[in-house]
């Protein structure tokens, strides 16, 4: 009995060690674009999207509901971005750590862009938005040249030349869409990610620029949505007074 217990303990310890040493599954989901579809299906609805007046090749939606609009929320949960493979991409050839690096970079960029205007929280609740995002159309690129490889290089590059992003803010409790945008850009043939530390390497600058650009656009959108209307300016001017006594002239 005692021997059996010891043997079982060894087995359990070995199992724990194996589990601990195995690579953790990426927190960033991976999906594939369906053939012939305009959108990935990631957003909760596409019915509200209309071509943007300000940004080319972008369709967007902003809720004008007086009760459920972006002004009525004060904090946000940033969900890990989901990566959608191009329809004909070879999933097995896509380096997992490269995909993770890509998604991590995008998550970091959008978090940094929004966090001082919409503080980041972890739990859903009233006044909290959920920011969902997806990188659409990621493809497998060429093998990385052997002479350029180091520990951080990927075996195969990730081609992001034709990626787009789909982003939406939803009510964290009900899932109702509050704002959404789908943006496509042709970043060109050179838009590749060939290293997990791509953001620090000049040759992959097109990728960082693209993700930074999308993050900035997201913040610009929030800023423009929060600009005071003419009526709001008048009302604010008329009612907003400090509590301390104003100075009196000498």
């Amino acid at each position, binding site marked *: 009995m005692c021997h059996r217990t010891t043997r079982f303990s060894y087995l359990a310890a070995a199992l724990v060690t194996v589990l601990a040493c195995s690579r953790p599954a990426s927190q960033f989901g991976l999906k594939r674009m369906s053939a012939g579809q305009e959108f990935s299906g990631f957003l909760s609805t596409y019915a509200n999207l209309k071509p943007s007046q300000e940004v080319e090749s972008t369709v967007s939606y902003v809720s004008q509901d007086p009760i459920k609009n972006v002004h009525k929320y*004060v904090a946000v949960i940033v969900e890990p971005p989901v990566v959608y493979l191009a329809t004909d991409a070879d999933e097995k050839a896509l380096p997992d750590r490269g995909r993770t690096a890509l998604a991590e970079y995008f998550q970091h960029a959008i978090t940094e862009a929004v966090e001082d*205007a919409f503080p980041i929280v972890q739990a859903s*609740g009233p006044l909290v938005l959920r920011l969902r995002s997806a990188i659409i159309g990621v493809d497998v690129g060429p093998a990385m040249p052997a002479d350029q490889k180091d520990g951080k290089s990927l075996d195969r590059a990730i081609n992001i030349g034709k990626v787009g992003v789909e982003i939406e803010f939803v009510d964290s409790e009900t899932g109702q869409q509050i704002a959404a945008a789908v943006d496509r850009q042709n970043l060109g043939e050179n838009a590749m990610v060939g290293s997990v530390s791509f953001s620090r390497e000049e040759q992959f600058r097109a990728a960082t620029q693209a993700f930074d650009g999308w993050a900035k656009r997201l913040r610009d959108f929030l800023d423009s949505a*929060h600009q005071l209307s003419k009526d709001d300016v008048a009302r*604010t001017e008329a009612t907003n007074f*400090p509590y*301390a*006594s*104003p100075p009196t002239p000498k």
Partner: protein
Amino acid sequence: MTTRLLPALALLLPAGLLAGEISVFRAYVDSDLCARLMLGPITPSRIQCSQSTVKEGSEPVVVHLRNNLVLTVNKQKMIRDLAGQLVEVSGEMKAKNGTVKLQSANVITAESVPQGDPARKLLDVRTYRTDKSAQLHEKIRHELAMMPYISEFDFISFTQSGVDVILTGWTIRSTNRSTAYNVVKDIPGVETVINNIDVLPLGSLDMQIRAAARAALQRQLSRYFWGNGSDIKIVVKNGQIILLGTVSTKADSDIAFIQCNSVSGAFKVFNLLRVQGSEKKGA
């Protein structure tokens, strides 16, 4: 080593180098609430604010007369009944932490503070009088009012003393704290800006109170909520609701108070709503 250190410590202790230094200074006993709202001259409306909010449960604090520094105290009981009065305080002050360990607090009169003493600054409304101040005040007010991310859950106020501006209030967004500082700092005529704006925690209970309070007020007093703003500000901190802003009638102020008192999870409501046209009465 230890034997060498011990005599050194014994020598240092009586000299007060290891123990905290005891300061004696003149102060105004305020509530945390009013100190953050009304830094500046001690006017009758401020005294009324201090007394009523301490009575309602706001933490009593002392405000250093020399520099407007708000200090929380360890023995609140010692000063609770002195709200709205001037005191001479002795205790171990930690300016960086904004705290003082009270030893004593004795009531003094304004007359006992000598003319020319820097401690008179807060007592003398003339400190807050300069030729350009009224214009500058309006400019600061305008710039702060136009900040885009101000919601019904933020209240940014300020006190102006000549070319010095003290920003006060509460916000749920850190961008408001930095934006307020930057816009005021850039106004021609402003020389120094002290940023006392408190960034509020976003705990889930406070968030639920915010949402419930706004919903309750919008149901009953919808005319004060417009476009993307509101005349009523709902500041929520650790379960306490502070109502600020302006309403048309005393009845509306009372309705707001009653509505917020019925919000689940809120354990205290401070009604500091001003009633239009009755500011002078200290409403």
